[in-house]
């Protein structure tokens, strides 16, 4: 069923009786050509592009809970492509271009809103670093714009410009960045994949891999064995737990990241802003809540909830940037589990086990990458060669010394 304004009017006049489920609820087949583990944004996008772009058939997405119930439902919904390094920037710019055409491609309203993202500058060395990053972005076909404090004041008059310690001296803006309705991304890709014949199997947990002579033959699940030509793991946050079942140790630690929403306010924040003197980022949802987050809690965790010291730290950062925020009450907070990799960048690669592929290590940048992650993973699965924008995301980059370390932190996952 195609969605359109006309359709909404027609259904409104006929009692909304014509709407159908957006995707089927099939029983698992005994075997598939491609089994994608993980019905989150990345897994569903992978299935969608594998079926649509690469024309593959007999594809299943298996999900232990319900689709979109993991990190695609637990993020701060920001999209951007403001990276510095060659291994990253072309990939994220590819992703942003896919976001721009996503709703027409999927025929689904994902509320993609290119309201702009602004990284604030508080010192002269920071300006130098952001000019360099802006130039790197422009060289890779993205947009970047250096703003003066006066230009920012016109758009965000309520920021703490004259802070004694961290005055705002300017900012690096990416106008094409913005926010997206996160759940709709999962639902849109699920509907798109289903319409191309992909089986989306929920409440089906992987309990093990069937590996014979170094070849992965399929997965053992809570709903029985499912054979597969190729098995594609796509469960960022739980990668360590899943791949341990295949006997693999990963360059990844799982950490908890908290995010927050204030009560609904009238429109105040026109775009996404990030603080340059602390770790704090904030936007306003279409419902009016300020959506914001900060640092990891900093210790290994699978608990999907954090502790209070980080709540205090994030709110302090917010208050020092937007003093007026103190008048808003905190409505909700939650924790999500991040695959924190050793260099802060993801991995999309084959494993040493034939027929088993891996996509993970997204740290806390996975949401913005959803379309490109799905596309390049589908490319890898379909052709067995990496997509042009994802050649650097290899497992062996640590052994070979080709880390993609945007922050220059070294092999310390909780600092990325």
């Amino acid at each position, binding site marked *: 069923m195609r969605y359109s304004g006309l359709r909404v009017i027609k259904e409104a006049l006929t009692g909304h009786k014509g709407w159908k489920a957006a995707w089927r609820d099939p029983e698992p087949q005994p075997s598939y050509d491609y089994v994608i583990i993980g019905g989150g944004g990345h897994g569903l996008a992978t299935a969608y592009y594998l079926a649509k772009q690469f024309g593959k058939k007999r594809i299943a997405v298996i999900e232990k809970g319900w689709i979109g119930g993991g990190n695609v439902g637990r993020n701060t919904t920001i999209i951007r492509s403001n990276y510095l390094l060659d291994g990253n920037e072309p990939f994220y710019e590819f992703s942003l271009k896919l976001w721009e055409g996503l709703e027409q491609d999927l025929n689904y309203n994902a509320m993609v809103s290119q309201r702009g993202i602004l990284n604030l500058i508080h010192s002269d060395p920071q300006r130098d670093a952001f000019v360099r990053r802006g130039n790197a972005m422009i060289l890779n076909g993205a947009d970047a714009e250096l703003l003066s404090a006066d230009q920012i004041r016109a758009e965000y008059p309520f920021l703490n410009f004259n802070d004694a310690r961290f005055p705002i001296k300017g900012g690096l803006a990416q106008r094409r960045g913005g926010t997206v309705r996160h759940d709709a991304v999962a639902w849109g890709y699920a509907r798109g994949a289903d319409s191309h014949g992909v089986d989306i199997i929920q409440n089906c947990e992987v309990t093990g891999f069937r590996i014979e002579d170094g070849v992965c033959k399929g997965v053992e699940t809570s709903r029985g064995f499912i054979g597969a030509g190729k098995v594609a793991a796509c469960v960022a946050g*739980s990668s*360590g*737990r899943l791949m*341990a079942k295949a006997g693999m*140790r*990963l*360059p*990844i*630690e*799982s950490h908890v990241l908290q995010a927050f929403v204030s009560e609904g306010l009238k429109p105040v924040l026109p775009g996404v802003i990030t603080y340059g003197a602390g770790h704090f980022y904030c936007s306003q949802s279409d419902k009016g809540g300020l959506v914001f987050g900060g640092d990891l809690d*900093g*210790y*290994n*965790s*699978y*608990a999907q909830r954090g*502790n209070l*010291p980080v709540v205090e730290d994030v709110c302090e950062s917010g208050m020092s940037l937007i003093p007026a925020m103190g008048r808003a009450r905190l409505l909700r907070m939650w924790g999500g589990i991040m695959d924190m990799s*050793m260099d802060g960048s993801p991995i999309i690669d084959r494993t040493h086990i034939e027929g088993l592929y891996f996509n993970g290590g997204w740290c806390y940048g996975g949401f913005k990458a959803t379309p490109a992650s799905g596309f390049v993973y589908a490319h890898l699965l379909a052709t067995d060669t990496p997509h042009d924008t994802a050649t650097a995301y290899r497992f062996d980059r*640590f*052994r070979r010394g080709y880390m993609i370390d945007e922050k220059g932190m070294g*092999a*310390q*996952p*909780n600092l990325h």
Partner: protein
Amino acid sequence: MIINHPLLGPRDSQEFTYLGDASLIDRPDWQAENAVDQFHDYLYLRDNPAGSHRELWFHETGDRSWLVVTRDTTTHEITAVELARDVARARGRSK
């Protein structure tokens, strides 16, 4: 989280910084035949378990001792705290 320091008693985890898996105590032998492989695994690969996890915490704003804390990564419950010094000595790591 409260970490029950073996010498100082219960202390707020905010006084500590976190390093990671306590296997980092077991630094490989740099003269071994396969030292490159061993150091790759030591530096970059982790068990990352969901459940009981032995990990290194540094009492940065306290007595600056290193601790090995056994903590459940699914509940954050701490079940054991030892001085890293004692753990390393028990494994023959230092005199």
